[in-house]
C-alpha cells in the first residue's frame, strides 16, 4: 500500500467511522463530528475539486482552527492537490503575497477574513475560486456548500502518488523572504509513522497550537487521526486552561511558552495544596503526557511537571522535515536533550551543524532553487542548528548557524526581514533586531543628519513612534518590545557588514 495521506485516511474511514473525530465549542457547548461524518464531508469537497478541475493545483487555507478548516484541509491533502496553510495573523499584504507566490488557484477563506477576498481577486490572477469556509459568500466568492453541490454526480478525483506535494508551509527565511517548504505525501506519512506510540482509538487531544504550523498539523491532527483519536479545538489561547477542564484531554502538544504560563498558574496556588489535587484542578483527570517542541525547553520544567504526574517529552524538528527529526519518548527520555533521531531520520554533524537525511526531508523550497541548493546538499538537510550526540544517542542543541531568533512560542523570527522593513524609514540609519528574554529588541543608530537638533528623549520618542506603527500591523510574536538608541554606528567587518555578534558593544547604558 502506498505511503500517502490518502491511504491513511481511507484506513481511518474504515476503522473509526462511528468514533468521534473532532470536538469544538460553540459558546460553551461542545459540538462533535464523527470520523464517518468528517469523511463524508471530505469526499464531497473532493468531488467538488473534480467538478471544478482542481487536480495537481495549490489551494490556500486562510483561517484559524475550526471543523470546517480541517475538513477542507483533509480534502486537499487526500486529493492530489497541495494545501498551503496560511498564518491568518499576518498583515493582509503578506497573506496576499503568499497566495500569489504559492501560485494558489483556489482559496478556502474563513469569514473573519472575508475582507481579503477582494484583494486576493485583484492581486492574484491565478486564483479561480475562493470558497468561504463559514458564513455567506461575499462578492467574488462561493461557499463550501456551492463547491459540494458542484461535485454531485462526479467521481472522487484520482488519488495522489507518494511523491506528490501535499502541503507547502511557509517558514521564515534568513534572506527576509519567507520560503515555501514543499512536503510530499510520503514525507508526511513517514513522519507520522515514525512518531506513533502504542495507543488505541479514543485518545483525546486538545490542540492549542496554530493550525497552520507543520508541528500542529502533523503531530496533532494527522497523527491523532491515524490513531483514531478525538481532536479538540481550542477556541482561543485565552481559554487554554479553561478548555483543559472542559475537554479533559489525555495528550497535548505545546510550545515552551505554554508550559511556562501553566507553571506560573500552578505555582500561584501556593504550596498548601497537595500536588495531586492541584494537578486534578489544572490538568483535569486524564492529562499525563505533554509533547513540546518549536523551541528549547528549560529541563527545570520537565522535573517540575513530573511532580504533578505529567511527563513532558521534548522533541526537535523544523517544517523542512515534516517536521519531527528527534524526540524523547516513553522509555527513552533524557531531560535537556531533544531525544534520539526518529527511525526514518539519519543524522550527522558538519562543523557542529546538525544535518538530516531521510524520508521526511522536504522536496525543496517552492520556486526557490538557490535557497533549496543551499539547504539540501546531496540529500542532506542543513538544519542551521548546532548540536552534539552523547554516548546513548541523545542529541543536544547548543547554538545556531543562521541568524533566526527562536522564541519560546516556537515562532522563528528572521531579524533581517524586520530590519529590511524598518530600514526604509529615513530616520533609521542602521538597525539590528535581537531577541532577549523572549522579546524582540530594535537596536537603532539614527540618521545623524536628521537628529542633530533633537534631544535624546525626542530621538527615542520619534523612533518609538516608528516602532509603534510597525507593531500595529504585526502579529504579537513579530512585535518589537524594546528600543535601544545607539550613539555610535555598529561595528562592521571588512565588507562593511554589521557584525551581529558584536551588536551589544558600545551601547549606551
Amino acid at each position, binding site marked *: 500500500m502506498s505511503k500517502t495521506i490518502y491511504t491513511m485516511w481511507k484506513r481511518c474511514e474504515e476503522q473509526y467511522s462511528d468514533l468521534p473525530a473532532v470536538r469544538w465549542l460553540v459558546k460553551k457547548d461542545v459540538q462533535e463530528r464523527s470520523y464517518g461524518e468528517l469523511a463524508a464531508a471530505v469526499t464531497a469537497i473532493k468531488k467538488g475539486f473534480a467538478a471544478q478541475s482542481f487536480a495537481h493545483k495549490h489551494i490556500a487555507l486562510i483561517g484559524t482552527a475550526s471543523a470546517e478548516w480541517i475538513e477542507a484541509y483533509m480534502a486537499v491533502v487526500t486529493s492530489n492537490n497541495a494545501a498551503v496553510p496560511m498564518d491568518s495573523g499576518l498583515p493582509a499584504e503578506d497573506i496576499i503575497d503568499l497566495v500569489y507566490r504559492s501560485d494558489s488557484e483556489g482559496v478556502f477563506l474563513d469569514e473573519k477574513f472575508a475582507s481579503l477576498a477582494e484583494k486576493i481577486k485583484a492581486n492574484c490572477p491565478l486564483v479561480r475560486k475562493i470558497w468561504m469556509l463559514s458564513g455567506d459568500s461575499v462578492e467574488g466568492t462561493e461557499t463550501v456548500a456551492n463547491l459540494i453541490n458542484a461535485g454531485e454526480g462526479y467521481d472522487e478525483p484520482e488519488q495522489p502518488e507518494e511523491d506528490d506535494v501535499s502541503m507547502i508551509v511557509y517558514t521564515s527565511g534568513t534572506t527576509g523572504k519567507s520560503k515555501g517548504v514543499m512536503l510530499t505525501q510520503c514525507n508526511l506519512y513517514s513522519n507520522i509513522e515514525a512518531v506513533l506510540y502504542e495507543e488505541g482509538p479514543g485518545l483525546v487531544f486538545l490542540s492549542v497550537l496554530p493550525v497552520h504550523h507543520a508541528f500542529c498539523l502533523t503531530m496533532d491532527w494527522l497523527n491523532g487521526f491515524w490513531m483514531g483519536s478525538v481532536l479538540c479545538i481550542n477556541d482561543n*489561547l*485565552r481559554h487554554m*486552561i*479553561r478548555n483543559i477542564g472542559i475537554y479533559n484531554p489525555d495528550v497535548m502538544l505545546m510550545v515552551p511558552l505554554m508550559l511556562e504560563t501553566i507553571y506560573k498558574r500552578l505555582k500561584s496556588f501556593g504550596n498548601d495544596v497537595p500536588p495531586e489535587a492541584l494537578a486534578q484542578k489544572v490538568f483535569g483527570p486524564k492529562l499525563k503526557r505533554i509533547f513540546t517542541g518549536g523551541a528549547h525547553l528549560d529541563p527545570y520544567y520537565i522535573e517540575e511537571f513530573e511532580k504533578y504526574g505529567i511527563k513532558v517529552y521534548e522533541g526537535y524538528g523544523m517544517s523542512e522535515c515534516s517536521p519531527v527529526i528527534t524526540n524523547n519518548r516513553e522509555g527513552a527520555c533524557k531531560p535537556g536533550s531533544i531525544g534520539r533521531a526518529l527511525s526514518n531520520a539519519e543524522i550527522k554533524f558538519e562543523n557542529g551543524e546538525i544535518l538530516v537525511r531521510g524520508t521526511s526531508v522536504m522536496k525543496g523550497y517552492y520556486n526557490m532553487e538557490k535557497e533549496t541548493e543551499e539547504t539540501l546538499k546531496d540529500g542532506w538537510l542543513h538544519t542551521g542548528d548546532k548540536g552534539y550526540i552523547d554516548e546513548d544517542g541523545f542529541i543536544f542543541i547548543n547554538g545556531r548557524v543562521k541568524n533566526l531568533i527562536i522564541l519560546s512560542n516556537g515562532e522563528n523570527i528572521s531579524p533581517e526581514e524586520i530590519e529590511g522593513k524598518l530600514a526604509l524609514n529615513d530616520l533609521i540609519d542602521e538597525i539590528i533586531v535581537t531577541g532577549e528574554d523572549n522579546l524582540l529588541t530594535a537596536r537603532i543608530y539614527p540618521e545623524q543628519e536628521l537628529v542633530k537638533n533633537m534631544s535624546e528623549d525626542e530621538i527615542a520618542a520619534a523612533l518609538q513612534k516608528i516602532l509603534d506603527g510597525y507593531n500595529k500591523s*504585526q502579529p504579537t510574536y513579530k512585535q518589537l*518590545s524594546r528600543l535601544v538608541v545607539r550613539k555610535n554606528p555598529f561595528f562592521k567587518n571588512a565588507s562593511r557588514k554589521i557584525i551581529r555578534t558584536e551588536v551589544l558593544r558600545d551601547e549606551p547604558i
Partner: protein
Amino acid sequence: MEIEKKFKEVAERYCSVKADEITNDMKLRDDLGLSSLDLMTLLGDLEDEFDIEFEFSEDDNKLAGIVTVEDAINLFKEYADAE
C-alpha cells in the same frame, strides 16, 4: 475600582509581584515579567471571573498597544462596560 482590584489579584497569579504592590504605571513585560501568553491567559481568567466574553482573537491589533497595567485595565473595562 472593582475591575482594577480584580485585575491585579488575577495578575498576581502570573507574576512574582503581590497584587497590592502592582501599580498602574508598571509595564506588563518589563516590570511584571508577563509573557504575551500570560497576558492572554489572565484576560481569559478575568472573562471567567466576570462572566463576559471578549470578541477579539489572539492576533488582534488591540493587544499591540497594551504595555502597562493601566492599558490592560482599560481594555478590560472597555469590554466589561459594553457587556
